[in-house]
């Protein structure tokens, strides 16, 4: 008989699933195998908060199963799942690739996407790195130019040297202060 490969996700009622996961998952497995499915992989995917309430439930346990089954059996399985109260919701997806290949590829792609978003995130480490570099940059080239221009700055023509070299800064406060004082004095005199 021709079979397809499927991925199935079940939302299990949380009270039952947390109390006895094996038992509740076993019920689902039973339904699947009853209709001729051959289970390949099964795992408890997650126990998480739902984005919205389903049948009055805020949380649910996600149960992920990969299986092979004849296509006609899916309809029968869905009828049985509808009657079951433990399964809140289910989703079957027909896979285009063999199960193992699919699982490996998805895991790899997930990592790639996570890596990519880490690299390109706007508010992550990348930006902080750039900012620290930007802060360092003005400090970096300063001493190099300062050394060359220092004698000129020391000798005279302070305003020009001040504009050209940051090294003159150490001298400028001292130079500026008296200037400011004189200006102040001048203004006081005029008043």
């Amino acid at each position, binding site marked *: 008989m021709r079979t397809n490969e499927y991925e199935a996700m079940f939302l299990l009622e949380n009270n039952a699933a947390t109390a006895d996961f094996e038992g509740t998952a076993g019920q689902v497995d039973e339904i699947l195998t009853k209709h001729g499915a051959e289970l390949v992989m099964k795992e408890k995917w997650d126990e998480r908060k739902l984005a919205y309430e389903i049948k009055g439930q805020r949380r649910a346990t*996600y149960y992920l199963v990969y299986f092979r089954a004849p296509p006609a059996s899916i309809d029968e399985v869905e009828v049985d799942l509808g009657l079951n109260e433990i399964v809140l919701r289910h989703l079957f997806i027909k896979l285009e690739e063999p199960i193992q290949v699919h699982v490996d590829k998805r895991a790899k792609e997930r990592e790639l*996407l996570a890596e990519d978003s880490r690299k390109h995130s706007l508010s992550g480490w990348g930006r902080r790195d750039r900012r620290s570099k930007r802060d360092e940059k003005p400090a970096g080239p300063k001493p190099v130019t300062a050394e060359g221009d220092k004698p000129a700055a020391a000798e005279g023509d302070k305003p020009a040297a001040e504009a050209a070299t940051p090294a003159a800064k150490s001298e400028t406060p001292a130079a500026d202060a008296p200037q400011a004082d004189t200006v102040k004095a001048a203004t006081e005199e005029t008043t």
Partner: protein
Amino acid sequence: MASNTKIKNLKKLLKKRESRNKCRFTRSRVEYIDYKDVQTLQKMVSQQGKIYGRKRTGTQAHFQRKLKTAVKRARFLALLPYMGR
């Protein structure tokens, strides 16, 4: 000198922008968008739960189509909201 470095910085900036603007799925060479990858899907969806347009995210057309099915599957399984907030 100063203008030269400025131009260099500008070019760098443009390059960065370019690489940032491209589709994230093309960048990481993905074949399929998984509905279980909630972290990635959440970035393609607004606070309200609407799927962002291609203009905003720069997603390529065939990935946008795949994204659509992935988001809809995730919504069905209550991994993403139909309507947020």
